[in-house]
């Protein structure tokens, strides 16, 4: 079940998505040994306290949340969380965030030459305090290129850029990331969403707009993966968005993903990644295929012959 993302070799095609495993130390019910990799929560230079509460609301087939980048900072991660992941031996993809290009760079620098970290993922949903007046970096194509380019030039590790689905031209932005030096892409970031408590005349989240995840966003994520993969079949894509079963994962692989990440499903069922990997394996056996890579691009287009 090994997958090779153009040099980033993972034992399984199923990873834990950013911010869904806590620090990795307290998740005693998630079997880290049986993950293809762990994407860390997004790391900033200094500790961040994150958003006020309420930070979450349940919506139909979805989870709406806004954490506001709460994390203990990259140095605390290296000191306290990484050693545990290294002992387990699971490949680590560190998620990089910041409020300025410089912060992204400084976080990137600190993550170099650390055994166990196999790649970086650039989170572009962080508020751009430098030039974007607090709007996310991914709201402006030029800022996407600047951040991804800066991180990729600084990093000796392969860099994956995580993009949302709903910006003006996803394929163009994906191309810009690759031109700027991204090794691959993670598709998609959460979808902006809102919930309202009419009884109390309040938004359900303090933020008040959050990110929607879970099965509700799966079709959006699939379309994003499909569109980008068709244009850039040589670029490794990690698909993420509402994957909770082996069949969901197979759909992403067929649409063009090289591997998948599991987020919300793992919050509900800590064993979900293991079940999903098992489901992929069963599907491969059934179709007599060798590896997950054999599924890529197998999506049959055009009309079903009758």
């Amino acid at each position, binding site marked *: 079940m090994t997958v090779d993302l153009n040099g980033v070799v993972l034992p399984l095609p199923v990873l834990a998505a950013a*911010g*869904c*495993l*806590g*620090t990795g130390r*307290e*998740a*005693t*019910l*998630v079997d880290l040994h049986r993950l293809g990799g762990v994407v860390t*929560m997004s790391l900033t230079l200094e500790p961040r*306290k*994150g*958003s*006020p*509460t*309420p*930070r*979450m*609301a*349940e919506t*139909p*087939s*979805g*989870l709406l*949340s806004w*954490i506001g980048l*709460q994390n203990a900072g990259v140095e605390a991660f290296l000191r306290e969380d990484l050693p545990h992941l290294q002992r387990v031996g699971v490949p680590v993809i560190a998620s990089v965030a910041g409020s300025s290009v410089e912060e992204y760079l400084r976080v990137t620098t600190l993550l170099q030459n650390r055994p166990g970290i196999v790649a970086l993922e650039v989170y572009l949903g962080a508020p751009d305090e430098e030039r974007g007046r607090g709007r996310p970096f991914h709201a402006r194509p030029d800022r996407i290129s600047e951040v991804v380019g800066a991180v990729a030039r600084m990093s000796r590790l392969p860099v994956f850029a995580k993009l949302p689905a709903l910006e003006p031209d996803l394929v163009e932005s994906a191309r810009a990331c690759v031109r700027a030096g991204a090794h691959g892409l993670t598709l998609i970031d959460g979808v902006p969403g809102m919930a309202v408590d009419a009884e109390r005349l309040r938004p359900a989240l*303090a933020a008040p707009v959050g990110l929607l995840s*879970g*099965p509700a966003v799966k079709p959006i994520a699939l379309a994003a993966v499909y569109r980008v993969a068709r244009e850039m079949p040589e670029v490794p894509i990690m698909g993420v968005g509402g994957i909770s079963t082996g069949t969901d994962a197979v759909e992403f692989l067929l649409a063009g993903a090289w591997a998948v990440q599991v987020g*919300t499903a*793992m*919050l*509900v*069922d*800590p*064993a979900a990644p293991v079940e999903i990997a098992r489901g992929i394996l069963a599907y491969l056996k059934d179709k007599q295929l060798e590896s997950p890579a054999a599924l890529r691009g197998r999506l049959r287009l055009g009309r079903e012959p009758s």
Partner: protein
Amino acid sequence: MKRVRAEILSTRRLGAYHALTVVAPEIAERARPGQFVSVAMPPERSFLLRRHFSIHHASRRGGWAGTLEFAFDPQGQGTRWLAEAKAHQFLDVIGPLGKAFAYPTRLTNCLLVAEGHGGATISFLAQELRARGKRVDMILGGATQEHVFKPIEAKRIAQTLAVATVDGSMGERGTVLDLLPRMLEATGAQVLYAAGPRETLRGIAEVCLERRIPSQMALEERMACGMGQCFTCVVPVVRKDGSGYDNLRLCTEGPVLNPARVLWDRWMGEQPALAPTPPEGFPVVRSWPG
């Protein structure tokens, strides 16, 4: 933390609430008052997240050994589904989760205060305190008598029991806060424990601070995973040395906290992001003095 397939042994109404008893020996063995369990929802529904319930009882001995009881207000779609679940159905239960109440070592007189379904949490604690030879007095409250959690059981466990309801249908008309000063004096309370809505807990916390009574409270915040993974259920809590505060996860570092360390304004204020650092700095609160 264990994950089990737990059979529902009994399901019944308890006034405004609903109580389920499930067979979960691995969890019951370890469960302590203040801790909670999380229950998975049926996979084919549109509500995905697990529901979290404070443990009301965990039987380790006797005919009910290995069973676990929790209670809830069936107001949401998840809790309504659970209230309709039948005996012998199986639930996916994870627990025990979170940190439990600390028992006093030196002090003996404990006043336990609960409003609404907070009574479920507090009655488990009352039994454990009694088993340790402590004096237990209780104040229970709720909107109506239907919302006063198991007053007969409380009467049996507690040395004295005071009840307040907003509509006056049981005990005195008012809230638990109205009864608090009188009960503190009458019982010679040295330690206070509380559970219930955050507004009530905040009021109790102020009284405790004023009178320098060590206290612990089980707090509630909207929670997605319950296992420390998602960082949604945070509460701002002052560091022990007063050097600032941290947003701590109630599922992992709570739900039981020392209310003297909770930054209530920052947590519950209208504009929490703008809540200033108190001019006198953060209070230094040493560890549990009970």
